[in-house]
């Protein structure tokens, strides 16, 4: 049985399996990698390293994508 880690994903605290990479996390969340940006502890990751970067307990992951927005929408979130 693998150890679990506690991480923050888009501001939500989640328990994940230890040893999981950023690519695993995206796959588990059913998020296609080609249309998102991932920030790990404020560092923007190159898509090429998603499969190598292992998550550690306490990591803060932000996953961002494109939404409708216009001639400057007000911050919605």
């Amino acid at each position, binding site marked *: 049985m693998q150890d679990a880690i506690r991480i923050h*994903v*888009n*501001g*939500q605290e989640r328990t994940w399996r230890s040893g999981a990479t950023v690519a695993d996390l995206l796959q588990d*969340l*059913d*998020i*296609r990698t*080609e*249309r*998102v*940006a*991932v*920030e790990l502890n404020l560092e*923007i*990751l*190159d*898509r090429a390293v998603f499969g190598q970067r292992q998550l550690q307990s306490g990591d803060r992951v*932000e*996953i*961002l*994508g*494109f*939404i*409708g*927005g*216009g*001639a*400057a*929408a*007000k*911050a*919605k*979130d």
Partner: protein
Amino acid sequence: MTDDRLVIAGREFKSRLWVGTGKYKDFVETQKAIEASGADVVTVAVRRVNITDRSKDNLLDYIDPKKYTILPNTAGCYTVEDAVRYSRLARAAGVSDLVKLEVLGDERTLFPDTAGLIEAAKILIKEGFIVFPYTNDDPIVAKKLVDIGCPAVMPLAAPIGSGLGIRNPYNLKIIMETVKVPIIVDAGVGTASDAALAMEYGADAVLMNTAIAGAQDPLAMAEAMKYAVHAGRLAYKAGRIPRKLYATASSPIEGML
């Protein structure tokens, strides 16, 4: 007007109407409105992906990045740091090096913080971004943005979403005369005549969102805007007659009884 393409930073654009993708009922309406507008540049925002409900569709499933130029914005950013961060995230999300840079100064007016805008633009241009700055109708700031390497400037017509139309046509005209890059009038347009006027003054393009998305019939307004921008551009190129106080007869006197 196939010979009247807009070229910015080596990229050719078919349409002089650019549209935002916010405030629509759903993605289907967004898609239909964009199609009706004829726009080939669409702006999008960068936000957290919904990780709890993955059933939600992706905007880019409806707006094909192969068909449209996707222009990510930094809407909602009030600091240089945030605007730079969001620009980098937009690039990392993989569309392109283009960014519509917004550094807002105040929530009530959503006017740009032009000092912050210039600072953020400098940082991003150094990093290889193609920066489209959303700016005030201030000719001095517009010139500074061009001097630091912006390939176009996007002065507002009026506050975002206000629908007030062009509030300072004289400043816009000064910008158009003094700045040697394309001018895209961005924000504040309310209806078709506003867009036509912007083009008649000599704007190279108009960007809008609320005027279309907020109309009672967004698809009809999208189409109206397409014609307005086209008509305004043609009128600008045709060259209007001068305004005169008194009449000039257009029928000959000769041959009258």
